[in-house]
């Protein structure tokens, strides 16, 4: 699986973008989005997904169950 951003809750603060170790996050159409092909759930980089840890709005960076769990 990858993470995704719940667009309606995102404040566009940009904080997650700079922290993602895989440059998976970018701005698109007025909100931030995660590229599921690039997101590794931060596995191999950090103990916790960085986007989840920095996001000021709870439950905004969440697991996208449409994708299988990432395997390192």
């Amino acid at each position: 699986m990858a993470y995704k951003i719940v667009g309606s809750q995102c404040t566009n603060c940009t904080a997650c973008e700079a922290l993602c170790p895989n440059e998976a996050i970018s701005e698109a159409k007025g909100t931030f989005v995660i590229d599921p092909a690039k997101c590794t759930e931060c596995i191999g980089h950090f103990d916790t997904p960085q986007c989840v840890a920095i996001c000021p709005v709870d439950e905004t960076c969440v697991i996208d169950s449409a994708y299988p769990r990432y395997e390192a």
Partner: protein
Amino acid sequence: MTEAFFPEDHSNGSVDSASSADPAVDISDVMQKMAEHKGCGTEGGSGKASCGSSGGPEDMPAEIWEKVKNHPCYSEEAHHHYARMHVAVAPACNIQCNYCNRKYDCANESRPGVVSERLTPEQASKKVLAVASTIPQMTVLGIAGPGDPLANPGKTFETFRLISEVAPDIKLCLSTNGLALPDWVDEIAKYKVDHVTITINMIDPEVGQHIYPWIFWENKRLQGYEAAKILTERQLLGLEMLTERGILAKINSVMIPGINDKHLVEVNKAVKSRGAFLHNIMPLISAPEHGTVFGLNGQRGPTAQELKALQDECEGDMNMMRHCRQCRADAVGLLGEDRSAEFTTDKIMAMEVEYDAEGRKAYQQAVESERQAKVEAKKGQLDGLEAAGDMKLLVAVATKGHGVINEHFGHAKEFQIYELSQTGAKFVGHRRVDLYCQGGYGEEDALETVIKAINDCHAVFVAKIGGCPKADLTEAGIEPVDQYAHEFIEQSALVWFKDYLVKVAAGEIVHTDRGDAAIRQGALIQQAG
């Protein structure tokens, strides 16, 4: 009175070890002089003559006065003549505060529910130069919330670099929560940022855990006591490092009744001992519609009297900043409604901006003369005040700036509050009464709102006032005074006060204390400032 600035804490290990790490530039020297100067000013009498003339206020040494005289945030006088501008280039934040909802602008600058346009460093610098060329009184550029400038260091410093290249006369300031501050102090010094504001709401993590739900630290989200402990350590270390390098540091604190109200006295001592130049205590502004944790859980803000009592307690020997209007001296605001439309990002990016250094210099010289005139006007006004004895009272003033009573009662968006006593007229704060704060009530409620906001005042000075509000104010026990229209505030207030004292002495009126007032201000919001 060195101990005025360096009380016991100065000799305690943590401060000393930090300040000896790198030999101080000259701030300790400056602070030392300032402390001596203060001692001399406050103890009055004999010492005064030997204090020399700084050309500035009596209680400030020349070096500091030079640094702050054109800074609308730091100098009470400058507030009337100069304006600052904020740009939002740094929306990311590395901590969460319970009084912040980062959907909206920072509490230090804006109106409820308003979101500043997020700009790139190129857009921001161009906008600043365009505004500065049009509005000569724009002398300070701040980067503040929403977000923390030091959580976005690339954007923040690039903006500073672009502006300082073209307009070295513009002072740069930034406001931070302090978490990342120690990492960036050298960069801050490099760009000659001489004013940094740190928001410090506690020095005890037990208190802090009720204000900050989490911080982002070393790639993890930390909570509770642990988070607050790291935050306070970083804030105080950052403050010490600024002081060592001669960078002026102001501390902002948000007063949250029941959580840190008593504790802020300790905070005040801690920041003083580390060289903070000003301490600004702001009221928590909290309402459910702000969507903040405090707004939603019913945490109240302080009343005007509670706020003033705390400010008085902390004042002692340090400058308490009471003229911070939470950034209402907005340069873009000075453009007026119609003109600000000329400064939208699109239009500015299409503009050829030529920086008008000459025009700005001429304006600033004119302001200096105006300030001299005010100093003249002040002379002799203290004579005859002895009759006041212990009496202290507050008056409200409707003004558009320049230190003059020049606003119509009905048009006032805020009132300046002065305390009158034996020692003269002292500015103690602002009360906002503008539309944003009235929650959309009708006309009559608007007057009621004003009365509530200045209910602790004995009089209100205005340039003009209608018959109806005049009667209502009188009934509420607040004397409407309109005979000093377009005259200097402090001078007029003291003439009125002397007259009041004469009437009290003659038994014509009985002096009574007034009640408390409500603090009504714009929404929340966040700190980083």
